[in-house]
């Protein structure tokens, strides 16, 4: 697997290079937005790690230019407490994000899930993790071998999560997909249904392992690890 790192900080590039290479990925580096775009075009990678704060152009611009033709995964690297920036990037086609300073385990998990997402696109409608079993085609959900009854809205929310397993989904995206474009500001619907869904599918709805809160950004559904 090829990964292109676009980041102007030498230390971060070096760190990413060592971590990724020692985990079996091939790594290319670019320092500026311009070089990054050229590198991506000449040798299209499977995944791009893109820093939002580049010297010549912002990562947002690079993201837009890349998304005109590039279909692989893009994971944004951002500084802490910049949720609106992250949400903006996710709504503009980034697959996921990671904040500096990041933990190695977290980085590798993001990379793995983003690569999985860019590769496997054939729908495999049956998922199983821990005690939870979801069969999308049969609309069947079981927890510890017991069938769980979900309302139509709960099911479409869960189906959306399962199809995007491992990927962070923004509030805006979830509301738009499940409730429709007129509801994108009605976050109270989302809060209520997330709480209900957690009560039904999680072992302990207060310490969820499937529907993870990404503060200020959205939710991430985890079904494997």
């Amino acid at each position, binding site marked *: 697997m090829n990964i292109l790192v676009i980041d102007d900080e030498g230390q971060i590039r070096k760190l990413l290079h060592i971590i990724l290479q020692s985990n079996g990925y091939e790594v290319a580096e670019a320092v500026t937005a311009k070089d990054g775009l050229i590198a991506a075009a000449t040798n299209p990678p499977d995944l791009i790690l893109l820093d939002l704060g580049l010297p010549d152009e912002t990562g947002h611009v690079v993201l837009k230019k890349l998304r005109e033709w590039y279909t692989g995964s893009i994971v944004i690297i951002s500084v802490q*407490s910049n949720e609106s920036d992250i949400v903006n990037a996710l709504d503009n086609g980034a697959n996921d994000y990671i904040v500096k300073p990041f933990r190695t385990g977290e980085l590798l998990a993001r990379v793995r899930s983003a690569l999985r997402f860019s590769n496997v696109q054939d729908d495999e409608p049956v998922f199983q993790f821990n005690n939870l079993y979801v069969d999308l085609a049969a609309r069947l959900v079981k927890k510890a071998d017991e069938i769980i009854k979900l309302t139509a809205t709960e099911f479409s929310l869960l189906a959306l999560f399962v199809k995007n397993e491992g990927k962070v989904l923004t509030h805006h995206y979830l509301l738009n997909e499940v409730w429709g474009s007129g509801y994108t500001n009605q976050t109270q619907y989302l809060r209520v249904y997330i709480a209900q869904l957690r009560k039904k599918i999680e072992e302990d709805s207060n310490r969820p392992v499937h529907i993870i809160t990404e*503060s*200020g950004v959205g939710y991430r559904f985890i079904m494997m690890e």
Partner: protein
Amino acid sequence: MVVLFVSGSCYWWNDVLNYKVVAFLLLVALSFLSLFLNILPVIVAALVSAFIWNFFFIPPRFTFHVNSAEDFFLLIGYFVIAVVHSALAYRIKQKEKRVQDEEQQVNMLKLYDTLLNSLSHELRTPIATIIGATDNLLMPGDKLHEEDKRSLLLEVSVASLRLNQQVENLLNMSRLASGFIQVKLDWCDVNELIYATLKHVEENLKKHTIQVSVDENLPLFKLDSGLMEQVLFNLIFNAIHYTREHSQIIIHADCMDGNCVITVEDNGKGFPPEEIEKVFDKFYRLRYSKTGGTGLGLSIAKGFVEAHHGTIHLQNKITGGAKFTIKIPTETSYLNEIKNE
């Protein structure tokens, strides 16, 4: 006003009082004025009183005419004394103000000094750890045991997390100080908020037990979840940091009269009563408190709560331990309203 009052009452007693005594009384009134007023109003008062004295008291009365040379000199003398007096009083006041300013500046410098001391200590300690440990690890020749290497690396890891925490606090503080905080209100499930915060806290847990009690039917509140998470984190982190192992921390959330009320309490030693007022001050640290804080956590919590137009206060529980209460007026939305659609 005072001039009018004094001259008015003198006019009343005109029969009894000599007009020269009136001048004397007016001067007394003026000197009181010059203690409290600025130079301009005092000079105006001096002028007005001179005219009043002339017009109403110096014979012939009710004219500006002065009969005798003696009275003329008295009038001039009165005026000069009044002006000189006010000018002197003004200069004294100026000097006092300068001394006060200087004192204030000295106090500021002192505060700044303690601030820098505590800050540089809190930043330098982890940096020193990192430099020392990495130097040791990079030393040529492999003298370190595998176990020692690991423990050095662990130290580096802890130090850098601590450093990150301090930087985060400083950034938040400067955001507050610059007025750059924009509260982005959105519907917020407080239960979810508390548990999301606890997930971040877990790294710092030292065998403490945390108990959460949130009403099942708590409505959604309109809050800035990012800021509130930081507030809760700082309060819980504080409770963990300053209580002994195996202490208990209780977090409770409630809705009271349209207010979101969250309390964080512990069963530690509580705060010294005389210092309770000051704990939210910037860079304030309890006397004899242990290291590891910048004295910023609680003032950031306060700043963020106040950005929501809410209040935060601290009290010692009768049973021992400290209790922080956050109260934020906010919109609410009950779950059941849209449950059955």
